[in-house]
């Protein structure tokens, strides 16, 4: 395919997808989040760890005691809540991107192999996947971090170790469906190698379902990062995270509610947007839903 046709195809499918309001909205928020995480040093008015012992617990600017200097107030150490919110997106985006990419790669590889070759490969794989999924995800990630130690890389690793199995299961059952299609039989009778069939016929047809589960995985990865940071098993000290902000703010939420509440609102907005994106993607890409 020439690059020109490819780019035409791309712009056409982009147009098709963005005709869904849900996808448009979700894409804007997700792109915004990624931009904010990259541009954090430029956008944030303060260093996220800069303490100001003279101004702890400053309320947001719309309160009479608040100031426009710290628009969302300060925490117990006088750190700027707004700047910390912005910098925290880096941890979330890192885990979402790294965690999701590797989860998708490993899970899809296992799923495609199991679904395509069936037989013993499938049996063994699915036994492992089933057993793996018997381990409660939250507990397993906590256990892993307790062994590996805290830090963003280990959080991403925990996401991958826990979630590859769900990917494998979904991709495997989709591959099982696809391999029964006539065009696969045709490709086989033309003498295509297994590798070529998987690359040329199976993988492209997995794209719709992959898009949907990748989106969901991103929101799960972000949740895991926040959750682990909340219990002190996520980011290292001095790396701002919505989770550690919530944990700190919950300690004095009765008197200074804003420190815990703003990161919670941010997290809810991000997760909801990604879920709306996922729902939009499912509506547009899943033929089973379209026909209904």
């Amino acid at each position, binding site marked *: 395919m020439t690059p020109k046709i490819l780019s035409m195809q791309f712009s056409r499918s982009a147009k098709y997808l963005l005709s869904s309001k849900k996808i448009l909205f979700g894409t804007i928020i997700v792109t915004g989040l990624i931009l904010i995480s990259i541009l954090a040093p430029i956008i944030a008015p303060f260093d996220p760890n800069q303490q100001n012992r003279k101004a702890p617990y400053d309320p947001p600017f719309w309160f009479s005691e608040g100031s426009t200097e710290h628009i969302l107030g300060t925490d117990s150490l006088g750190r700027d809540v707004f700047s910390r919110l912005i910098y925290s997106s880096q941890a979330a985006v890192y885990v979402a991107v790294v965690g999701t990419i590797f989860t998708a790669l490993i899970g899809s590889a296992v799923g495609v192999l199991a679904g395509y070759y069936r037989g013993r490969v499938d049996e063994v794989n699915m*036994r492992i996947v089933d057993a793996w999924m018997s381990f*409660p995800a939250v*507990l397993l990630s906590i256990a892993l971090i307790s062994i590996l130690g805290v830090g963003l890389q280990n959080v991403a690793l925990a996401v991958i170790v826990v979630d590859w199995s769900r990917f494998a299961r979904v991709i495997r059952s989709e591959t099982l469906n696809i391999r029964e299609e006539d065009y696969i039989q045709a490709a086989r009778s033309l003498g295509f190698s297994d590798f070529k069939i998987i690359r040329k016929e199976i993988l492209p047809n997995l794209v719709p379902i992959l898009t949907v589960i990748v989106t969901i995985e991103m929101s799960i990865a972000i949740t895991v990062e926040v959750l682990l940071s909340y219990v002190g098993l996520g980011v290292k000290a001095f790396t701002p995270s919505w989770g550690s902000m919530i944990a700190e703010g919950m300690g004095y939420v009765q008197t200074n509610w804003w420190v815990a509440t703003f990161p919670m609102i941010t997290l809810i907005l991000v997760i909801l947007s990604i879920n709306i994106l996922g729902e939009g993607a499912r509506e547009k890409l899943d033929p089973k839903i379209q026909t209904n």
Partner: protein
Amino acid sequence: MFISLLVVSIIAFAIFQIVPGDPARMMSGAAATPQDIENMRQIWGLDRPAYEQYLIWLSHLFQGDLGKSIRFKVPVLDLIFERLPATLELIIVSVIIASIIGVVLGVLSGARKGGFLDRIFTTISFLGLAIPNFLWGLIFVIIFGAILKILPVSGRLEIGVDVAGITGFMMLDSILTLNIGGFLVAIRHLILPSVALALGLIAIIQRTLASSMVDVMTKDYILTDRIKGLSEKKIILVRALKNAFIPTLTIVGAQFAFLIGGSTLIELIFGWPGVGTLAFIAVQWKDIPVIQGIVFIYALIVVFVSLIIDLVYSFLNPKIRFG
């Protein structure tokens, strides 16, 4: 079943093989003497190849020995079983709440697909599903504990209220000892954590039930019922719901791992003295035997629950019998 258990035990064993450094030192804790570490190495065969270690671990397991806690100096299993009733009580109450509310919402949505109620409930379930349960827990703590101050947000009982321990299930024990005050206090403490835990499940039940109700409502036997002149209420509640129930049961079973995992954080947030809180204490103390024990026992529970669900499922639906 046997193979699932075997694979689960291998995974639970294997995960803890990645402990960096000397596992004997790690498992003996920070305050261990060289003699302690040597003992640990001997008992668990930590200087032998991995497969031998696994067999040693397995043979201990069959004797009900999952090792000793570093922090509490007692057998891991004793520690877990002492706290398991609190966790199970929380989970069982959540499942009951989720089933009741989920079924009501699902039936109301499914009966009038696209109607006003359906749209409201679908939005609610979207929120219930998208927002993780630990966040719901925190939101509840802020709203009901900090602002409204109408419900307790910590522990199972209050100071001054005592329930004699028989089964470890606070609600059951207070009924058995005819302790009405204790029963009410126990229920009040259960409300917020169990609802926070139930929300995701409510959403899933609502969705599945609503869509399977839509399916069932177009079936011929429902049409026959209509022609026979059965009231709409009776058709929905008796005839349709019965058949829409099976997918719901499967969902509850499939979500059990999610539920028991989610309870870990809910326990931490609400100061619930169950196995989840124990897991966090163990993590803080690097109490590897306890963490490993909890991971293994939880996976075991999930495997057993899914077996039970399969059995109930085949009982309810004779078409699916195991060959």
